[in-house]
């Protein structure tokens, strides 16, 4: 999962300057992605092969408690697995048999690699092949790694989607299709489907699919639009299969959503007048909703600590559509190619950071005392206790924020802590 060796497109903008930082990282590992991926892919089960720490992280990230038997679990490695007393593969087969017996309706089983399984070099790809053979016609077994060694938070989704690619059938040459990549809440997906259909763009498929049977087909005629910015590996692999990425900002805010839809409309040769007519009602609604939030956010100084790679697109939205002043925007990982359109829209003087040394970043936050700091759950209350308002970044991953009809909701997520601070007299 490294950017090294990737060909940089010539037109990539090398400005603004980026400060790179290394040190203690206050982010989840890729396993956290299971929390939304298992809700999205409804016939899949995620089995982490890891330690008690992995199990504990998952249940903590999933909102501490589970309300129904979840479609994810951890096969916790025990000392006898490490000491070689138990053949890990035999043990894995036993655990998988138990899951398939308990949950006979699942169609896809993901074997998810973790830090410990990586370090002991347990070959989950081989295991997935073996188990796919055993459960042929019943359950497809697929392996990917979401370890903290390899993936930062949302990169777990990239790794998962990448592992799904061999399941996508080949679309014949000459057949056009639009492929939307990145988990979106069903409600947002349906809004986009309606817009694309009114624009006459067809077929439109989504990765990840809601069920594996609905997995999209990919070919030379496939045009890709990224709904999420953290999918570098998946995009590159799909490009190798002949699909073409439609370069666009991300569909956050009115401006981003319009440009994102427009990229598809242009590729499909939709006349401008028709495009404008189709999006006009949604744009108008969004602008109305946003004007109220803009009044609350205008001129506020905001700081992004690195978390989901959504920081840059959201910062662009807040700066350009809500009048927010960006003090520092940090992202765990910057893919300059996938972020090119966004970087071009950022105010030129913005301070960008890639990576994290949490202590250094907090020192800068304390010195600048922004009106709002976007950070992870571990940092939010301590900053609040220092008199700084915060926004939990995790909500940006779990809440519907994409598209026209969510633009005001997205702004409201940032306005709410400020409004609340204004209300309280305690």
């Amino acid at each position, binding site marked *: 999962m490294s950017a090294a060796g990737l060909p940089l497109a010539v037109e990539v903008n090398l400005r603004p300057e980026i400060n790179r930082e290394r040190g203690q990282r206050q982010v989840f590992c890729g396993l956290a992605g299971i929390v939304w991926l298992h809700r999205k892919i409804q016939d899949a089960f995620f089995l982490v092969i890891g330690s008690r720490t992995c199990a504990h992280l998952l249940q903590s990230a999933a909102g501490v408690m589970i309300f129904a038997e979840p479609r994810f679990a951890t096969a916790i490695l025990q000392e006898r697995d490490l000491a070689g007393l138990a053949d*890990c593969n035999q043990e894995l087969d036993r655990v998988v048999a138990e899951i398939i017996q308990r949950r006979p309706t699942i169609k896809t089983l993901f074997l998810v690699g973790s830090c410990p399984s990586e370090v002991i070099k347990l070959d989950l790809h081989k295991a997935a092949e073996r188990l796919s053979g055993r459960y042929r016609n019943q359950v497809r077994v697929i392996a990917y790694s979401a370890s903290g060694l390899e993936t930062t938070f949302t990169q777990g989704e990239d790794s998962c989607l990448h592992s799904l690619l061999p399941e996508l059938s080949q679309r014949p040459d000459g057949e056009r299709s639009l492929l939307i990549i990145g988990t979106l809440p069903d409600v947002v997906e349906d809004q986009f489907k309606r817009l694309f259909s009114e624009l006459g763009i067809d077929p439109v498929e989504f990765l990840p699919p809601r069920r594996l049977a609905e997995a999209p087909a990919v070919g030379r005629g496939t045009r890709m639009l990224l709904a999420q910015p953290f999918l570098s590996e998946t995009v590159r692999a799909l490009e190798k299969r002949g699909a073409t990425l439609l370069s666009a900002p991300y569909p956050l805010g009115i401006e981003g959503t319009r440009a994102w839809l427009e990229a598809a409309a242009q590729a499909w040769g939709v006349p401008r007048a028709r495009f404008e007519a189709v999006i006009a009602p949604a744009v108008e609604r969004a602008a109305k909703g946003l004007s109220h939030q803009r009044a609350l956010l205008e001129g506020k100084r905001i700081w992004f600590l690195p978390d989901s790679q959504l920081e840059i697109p959201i910062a662009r939205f807040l700066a350009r559509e809500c009048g927010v002043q960006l003090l520092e925007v940090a992202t765990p990982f910057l893919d300059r190619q996938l972020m090119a359109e966004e970087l071009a829209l950022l105010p030129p003087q913005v301070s960008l950071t890639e990576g994290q040394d949490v202590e250094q970043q907090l020192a800068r936050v304390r010195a600048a005392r922004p009106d709002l700091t976007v950070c992870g759950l571990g940092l939010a209350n301590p900053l609040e206790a220092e008199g700084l308002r915060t926004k939990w970044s995790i909500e940006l991953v779990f809440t519907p924020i994409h598209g026209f009809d969510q633009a005001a909701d997205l702004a409201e997520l940032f306005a709410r802590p400020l409004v609340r601070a204004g209300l309280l007299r305690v």
Partner: protein
Amino acid sequence: MQLTLWSYEGPPHVGAMRVVASLRRAHLVLHAPQGDTYADLLFTMIERRPTRPPVSYTSFQARDLGGDTAALFLSTLQATYERFQPELFLIGESCTAELLQDQPGALAKGMDLPIPVLSLELPAYTRKENWGASETFYQVVRALLKDQVPPPGSTRPGRPADRPPTANLLGPTALGFRCRDDVIEVERLLDSIGIGVNVVAPLGAAPADIRRIPEADFNVCLYPEIADQTCEWLKRNLHQPVVKTVPIGIGATREFLKDCAAAAGLDLKAIPEPSWSRMPWYSRSVDSTYLTGKRVFVFGDATHAVAASRIVVEELGFKLVGLGTYSREFAREVREAARRYAVEPLITDDYLEVESKVAELQPELVLGTQMERHIAKRLGIPCAVISAPVHIQDFPARYAPQMGFEGANVLFDTWVHPLMMGLEEHLITMFREDFEFHEDAPPSHLGSIQTRPVQMPTTPETSIVWTADAEQELKKIPFFVRGKARRNTERFAEERGIKTITVETLYDAKAHFGR
């Protein structure tokens, strides 16, 4: 490999974090990969602590594995020392670092820092959170007190006559169940018989406080899961007696006071009856008659589960139908209590096993952890939470101890309120299928919240059928005992080879099982 959907305890390094977050002026450096910082949110979100836990992580990634993770550890340690200036360093590894074998403890000691540096062994693949907390607390106490251990054969000097007796309260930690309020309540209890508190640890103790532990006359082992090992070491090496009675419930609180008086050498003629203890009277009052024989299932850590079982039976007049724990280290204590109350002990960390036990026993009240609260909700059974693992609701804004006389008041309220109140239950029995008092009407104190009992699948192999009359009659039985009546009648029929249950069979069974 152990298939785990949800676990009661985290890994042992989270136990170490709980201890270091409880202490003052101590800092833990964890050799751990990116992602392990998730544990910080337990402290800042669940307990709403206003500061980050004093833990620094090396956050190594794949690219570091090819290089020098040991060097990364050393630079993290150096930077942490300069930034936080702790008085005590703890060094630990999470599960992945354990596999790398960088020996961070030895590396840290090689740095010759001017403060004590403790290397923790936290075997992540065999042990769990409470073990990690207990081990960490023990290592801290031992390291800071080992130079105060007298030579073998020496005896402990008596307390000077002019100094009032004191005790240490050992075991309360961050993320512990109601520790914050229990400490206040126990201090108040001890004060009521003239015993002062010397040190509370680990919660709120600085290294200098730990060094003062030997000054107390005895130790109170408030939470055995965390402090038992430490108290035993103090008894063996510093000859400090230990009071192991955990003062949860009226009976246990009285015993606790008696034990503390004895350990302090006080002559206590009678335990003063505190005015704030309403629980005994509430339990005797007529409304509580309806609590008699309510079937209760108890599950939690060993300390709270054992204490709850005694209160259930002796102080509230319920019937204990099941008792279990996820604390394998204290399974013996739970088995003993189960034997005492003639129930089957359930020792497991698999919540699905607990769930099927609850479904099988169909209790009228579940006392458990937050997981049992979910289980009970699914099954439509009232529930109260008595034990960790903690949830944000387990840190109430109000004072709500579990220990001592005030704790007993809290327990009465929190365990009895989820049940139908006595008078209310009585009315429903009288009016049975009345349009307002019916089985789907929620208890009035729960407002409009609807909890519908989940239908338990009837055993498929049973070939017994109910006549329409008998079904009709069964419906006249109050809904909260109907499930039990159905099961008992079917069992009665099965034992007698009766294939068709009539109204007669129903009443025969009632007579047979009648209390």
